[in-house]
């Protein structure tokens, strides 16, 4: 199978699957569900094939496909993955299987619902594979329409406001990137990222480009202060939508920094690292505090996501000052590697958290913490999972949440004690808001009669949560395979970021 265009298959199979599902008639709901599940499972298996054929030692792009796409402007259909994109793709394909399961009982227009998710999957995988900037942009923006519909059609009461805010915020952020991309294209005469990595740029150009990229990716990831769309979107989105949003779409912001900001504008990245570090720490500390006072479970997890994504940007930028210092290369690798591990880990943990809220919401139709209490008495199995994922979310050793955060905090010490100290507050804050929520929801006396009638999780829900729990635990106790996979690519990224483009 090594000669197959695997990446194209991964992108187009869900898209075509989505088209087919969309045209199924209303009465064929069962077929729509099983077909979607089949497509996502096949895509997942194909992505495993990708892993099997991947060479860990190689830092360059693998599985490269390249054909002319829009010759008039030299745009190419150019795909390829490295050790950073691969784990993200694996995570995406797995999460999408769970997402189809999570949306299993959606009643309204299920064929359109599932079709939107399948299309979304294709776009998201496309973003991780694209090596042509225009292609990247098309996939990056293409995601907006299906997500817009998912929140808008199947969301909560205030869905229209939330989805418009989501769309316009992200659209606004990315159009400036488009101008930046056009500028780079005109300068280099090519949309190929590899050409952009070697193009010399003066400091002024780099700063402007960096800011253009920042606006796009900061909105997506999201960073304080442009994060306000996320809590709204999460609260209103259906469970499956929240899962995709948190698990995959936020990572695309982080991935953008890795693909564009650091290698294309390395000098500006160093110059403005202080800004990124400050914003990241504000996200970690301030947004963590904001999470503490949330009364709505989904909102709490949304703020917790922003806080956790702060670690990703922190890890990417915290040690850029040390690029020239050979003694601190290990710490640098630790920081950047930690950022990537954090992305993967947060993908699984946040997916699990949102699925958990979905489990409760399906039964009680409320997300308010105060409506619950004593759930453990009637849903023991669910409580087991919930407590486990809460531990992972607060970064308990032995879970995946610990690995990434620990790597980043450790590396931060090289940048300064107080910096690391502030970053480390997440271990306390994260534990505080997550465990406090779990305490209020799961334990204590039952004061709401509705809670008494709750039934424990069924087999579908158990499967979803078990898969995620196994992965969270596996990465937590044995992160080696993941670290091996991306090691060479992280080193390569550092080389690119260290290579000055001035003069």
């Amino acid at each position, binding site marked *: 199978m090594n000669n197959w265009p695997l990446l194209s298959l991964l992108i187009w199979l869900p898209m075509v699957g989505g088209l087919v599902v969309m045209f199924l008639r209303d009465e064929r709901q069962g077929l729509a569900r099983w077909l979607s599940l089949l497509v996502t499972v096949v895509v997942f298996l194909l992505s495993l094939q990708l892993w099997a054929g991947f060479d860990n030692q190689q830092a360059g792009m693998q599985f490269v496909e390249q054909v*002319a*796409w*829009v*010759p*008039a*402007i030299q745009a190419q259909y150019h795909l390829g993955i490295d050790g950073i994109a691969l784990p993200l793709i694996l995570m995406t394909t797995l999460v999408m299987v769970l997402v189809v399961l999570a949306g299993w009982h959606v009643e309204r*227009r299920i064929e*359109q619902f599932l079709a939107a998710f399948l299309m979304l999957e294709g776009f998201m995988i496309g973003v991780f594979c694209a090596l042509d900037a*225009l292609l990247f*942009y*098309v996939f990056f*923006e*293409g995601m*907006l*329409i299906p997500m*817009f*519909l998912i929140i*808008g*059609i199947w969301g909560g009461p205030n*869905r*229209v406001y939330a*989805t*418009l805010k989501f*769309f*316009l915020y992200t*659209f*606004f952020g990315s*159009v*400036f990137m*488009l*101008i930046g991309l*056009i*500028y780079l*294209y*005109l300068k280099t005469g090519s949309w190929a990222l590899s050409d952009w990595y070697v193009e010399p740029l003066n400091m002024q150009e780099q700063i402007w480009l960096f800011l253009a990229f920042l606006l796009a990716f900061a909105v997506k990831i999201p960073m304080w202060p442009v994060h306000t769309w996320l809590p709204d979107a999460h609260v209103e989105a259906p469970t499956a939508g929240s899962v995709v949003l948190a698990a995959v779409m936020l990572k695309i912001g982080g991935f953008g920094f890795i693909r564009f900001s650091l290698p294309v504008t390395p000098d500006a990245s160093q110059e403005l690292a202080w800004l990124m570090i400050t914003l990241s720490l504000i996200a970690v500390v301030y947004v963590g505090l904001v999470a503490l006072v949330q009364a709505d479970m989904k909102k709490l997890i949304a703020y917790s996501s922003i806080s956790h994504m702060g670690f990703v940007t922190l890890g990417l930028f915290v040690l850029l000052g040390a690029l020239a210092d050979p003694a601190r290369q290990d710490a640098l690798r630790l920081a950047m590697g930690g950022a990537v591990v954090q992305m993967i880990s947060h993908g699984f943990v946040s997916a699990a958290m949102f699925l958990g809220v979905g489990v409760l919401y399906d039964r009680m139709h409320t997300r308010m913490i105060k409506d619950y209490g004593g759930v453990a008495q009637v849903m023991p199995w669910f409580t087991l999972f919930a407590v486990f994922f809460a531990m992972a979310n607060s970064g308990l050793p032995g879970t995946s949440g610990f690995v990434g955060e620990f790597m980043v905090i450790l590396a931060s010490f090289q940048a300064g004690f107080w910096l690391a100290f502030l970053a480390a507050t997440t271990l306390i804050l994260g534990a505080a808001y997550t465990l406090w929520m779990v305490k209020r929801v799961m334990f204590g006396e039952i004061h709401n009669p509705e809670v008494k009638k709750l039934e424990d999780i069924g087999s579908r829900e158990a499967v979803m949560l078990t898969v995620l729990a196994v992965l969270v635990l596996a990465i937590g106790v044995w992160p080696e395979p993941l670290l091996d996979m991306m090691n060479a690519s992280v080193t390569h990224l550092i080389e690119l970021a260290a290579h000055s483009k001035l003069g």
Partner: protein
Amino acid sequence: MNWYQALTMILPEIIMLAMACVLLMLQAFLPERRKGLIHILALVTLALVAILTMRPYLVGSPVWPESILQGAFVRDRAGDLMKVFVEIVAFLALVYGKQYFRVWQEKAEDFYILVILSVFGMMVMISAANLLTLYLGLETLALASYAAVAMFRKIGLSVEAAVKYFVMGAVASGMLLYGMSLLYGATGSLQLSEIRTAVAALPAHDPLLLLALVFLLVGLAFKLGAVPFHMWLPDVYEGAPAAVMSFIASAPKIAGFAILYRVLVDGLAPMAGQWQGIVALLALLSMGLGNVVAIAQSNVKRMLAYSTISHVGFLLLGMLSGTAGYTASLFYALTYALMSVGAFGLLMLLSARGQEAETLDDLKGLNQRAPWLALMMAFLMASMAGVPPFVGFFGKLYVLQSAVEAGQIWLAIAAVLFAVMGAYYYLRVIKVMYFDASENEQFVSLPLDAQAAISISGTAQLLLGVFAGPLMSLCVWAMS
């Protein structure tokens, strides 16, 4: 160059005009039950002429002379490409129109004939090598359009729109004609190529030339509906029958680009330094006002009218930066015509007798009543908003690229900001179709030809976007 060769070169135009006359005769003398023939003949004519226009390229690679008929007429690749698109768009408009007039129980034959006549006018405009030819083509188009807008003469709004259109159009024509006469006075020729040589020899700040330029630009801006000469456009769009609107909002934009190109580039290229500033201002104002005011509209026709103004702004933006920019504008005009004929077409398919579908409420819950139509409309709106992977994105990308290349980076940034504002009202259409519940549960059923036409309009947005290569290469080839 003998007469025979010249005639074969203008054969498409001749057929178009002849058929317009034939159809007029048939309309007068055919018995009522046979009138369906006129629709079919009109469609056949458009298809035939499109094929005839393309034929030389299919059998070989023709080399066209500079101009024919004593310099009145020019045939080139760009012109032929535009003509083919005008014919395709007119074809779609006719298919939509048939269903619309059937629902309204009005006579559609006049509409078909007026469309054929306007297409003839546009073909002449596109091929004009001489200011007189250009003006003749323009007036043929304009007169046919005035008449078409007034078709529902029992409806006040329609008549009001027609009068407004006529008066404003006449003013614009006057300006244009005055500009032309001044230009003739300054250069001593009506021939665009000769004007070009003459202008190059004159000092750039020659007052007579500048005066001529200003009048020409004002006239063109009036015709295109660029701010601040746009006041007539929303009223006309709102008042005109949707079928007529779908036609005059789409194909004439291609022809509009053609005259812009012929006058400003073929004729006044040496004065680019003078007209670029004015065009940049028109572009900026149009994009700004069009997008901002469209947000406030609850009437979809008015909203689309303001959106047209903003698209004209984008079209003008491309005129600022040499051949790459003209190619971008050409691509933009062609794809915009396809979008707008589809969007208006969809509106008219939803119209009931005596009741235009024109407010956002009429689109409410369309996804429940007709999922396919809703999807097509969503494609069209996303394409107009410039969201990838739809073709509208590539049009905007191409124009922006040429603007950045010309060093107009701030203009490009303003353009994308306005595009973001614009996204809001296009999204609102998607919102009412998908998120709101429908007031009546009646399924929309359409005849096969209308279904096919709307499917072509909608899917073309996606396909021309995903496979943007061929059309873009075609435009590059046409302009080189």
